């Protein structure tokens, strides 16, 4: 609380009105309640600043993304993409892209001070056209069949991938780029197929795009045709956070983008999420609505 920065009056000190008034004036506080006065935890909730500049989470924002019609009676449908394609952006019913604007001034995230946290979800339905089209891609395992022969079974890696882009140029929101440590799956990994090492998928979330399993497997051998089950409407969500280093970054907007179909690949000790161009034209993704939320908080 209040402090005296001058020593007490001692014998032999020159005592006059000016020096005494100076000392006395130290007690006349002009409303300076600073971090010294504000001791650890000495507050009640009404004393916390509200609105912009809050002490723990200075800013928060949320928006609905996608086609906001929860009956699922109408939705957007997207066809699979091949290497080189720009990802789809989550769209509303217009369809127009849906983004989260962080205001004209954006949010400035400082190193060793702030943490940007982004959470999102989206209602989706992955599906395929045709019969087991994934067998035309690198999306299956070949397994032994009872009585001889083999059977191809969806490996479970097949998926659509969703990731985050941000605009750190202006609130015009026309300069979206992938967030740090997130690439666009267009670097050729094997043959002509593009993909990312898993370490270059910092904001990626996936949703499996087929379900296939064996019925009455007998000691590792298939005894019947693999069973397919539609994935149906499901959800995909993401949780991403970012602490800038070594410089501050001002973020003006965020959006969720997606592409597919992807599968697994490994080479040289590196695991990749790669495109499956040969079957892309038969993959479909229906999308509905979700939310995209962001906040930045102080870390100390």
């Amino acid at each position, binding site marked *: 609380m209040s402090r005296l920065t001058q020593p007490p009056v001692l014998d032999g000190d020159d005592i006059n009105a000016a020096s005494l008034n100076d000392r006395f004036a130290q007690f006349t506080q002009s409303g300076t309640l600073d971090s010294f006065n504000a001791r650890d935890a000495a507050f009640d909730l009404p004393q916390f600043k509200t609105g912009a500049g809050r002490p723990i989470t200075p800013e928060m924002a949320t928006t609905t993304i996608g086609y906001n019609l929860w009956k699922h009676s109408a939705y957007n449908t997207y066809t699979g993409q091949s290497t080189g394609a720009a990802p789809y952006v989550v769209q509303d019913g217009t369809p127009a892209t849906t983004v989260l604007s962080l205001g004209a001034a954006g949010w400035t995230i400082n190193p060793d001070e702030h943490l940007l946290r982004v959470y999102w979800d989206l209602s989706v339905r992955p599906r395929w056209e045709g019969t087991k089209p994934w067998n035309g891609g690198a999306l299956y395992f070949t397994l032994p069949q009872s009585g001889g022969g083999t059977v191809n079974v969806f490996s479970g890696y097949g998926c659509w991938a969703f990731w985050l882009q941000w605009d750190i140029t202006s609130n015009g929101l026309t300069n979206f780029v992938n967030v740090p440590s997130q690439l666009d799956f267009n670097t050729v990994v094997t043959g002509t197929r593009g993909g990312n090492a898993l370490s270059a998928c*910092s904001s990626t979330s996936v949703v499996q795009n087929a379900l296939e399993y064996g019925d009455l497997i007998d000691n590792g051998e298939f005894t019947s045709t693999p069973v397919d089950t539609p994935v149906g409407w499901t959800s995909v969500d993401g949780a991403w956070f970012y602490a800038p280093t070594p410089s501050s970054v001002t973020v003006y907007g965020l959006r969720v983008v997606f592409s597919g179909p992807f599968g697994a690949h490994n080479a040289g000790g590196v695991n990749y999420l790669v495109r499956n161009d040969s079957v892309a034209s038969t993959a479909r993704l229906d999308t509905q609505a979700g939310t995209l939320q962001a906040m930045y908080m102080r*870390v100390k």
Partner: protein
Amino acid sequence: MTKKWTQSQVREGRSVSPDLFNQELRAQQSSITTLDRTQLPGSFVDEARLKDYALHQVWFDERVGSGEQTNEVDTGVPAAAWESSTIQTSRGGWRTLVETTLTGFKGGSLFVEWSANVYVNNIFSYGRNDGRPGTPNYMGMRILVNGVNIGERRGGGYHQQCRIFGSQLMPPGNLSLVLQWRDAEQSQDAASTTSSGDRMPFAHLWNNRWLAIARYR
């Protein structure tokens, strides 16, 4: 606020001694140090008026290593798969992905969240010999703080994003944070290799990140 003399006001021509003034100053100091939180104005606690770690503290790892679990990495899998956990490498039980210390915890509420993409192989869930409904696989995930389980979920059963979180009141002092995963044991009917002899991948976690927030009061 302007303070008033309370002990003996300075007047012209009065004799004074050091104690006279010290008495007054002490009295005023005492008065001011009784200014408590109920007297503080509303909405005055902002960033500038807070000491670091006064109210809260955050620890995080945006990406645990490369983001992937490295507890079990089998290189004998097919090319169209990930080097990951197989029947041949599986140790079973809980595997520790993260073990770290939350330094400087002052006592209060602790929130921890952990998110990842998980891959779980469910091709062999319905075996002839293990009986229906079979042995569906899941990716169990749990959060331990000082050895106390504050969040555990059965987790994903496919190739999908998962996030678990938990919170707990904890005593002051450095805290031990441990994140662990455990895939369901495989069916006795599960194939351990493909027909060409490559090892069958069963479980993997990638894009792992965690965040811990302490709230002090």
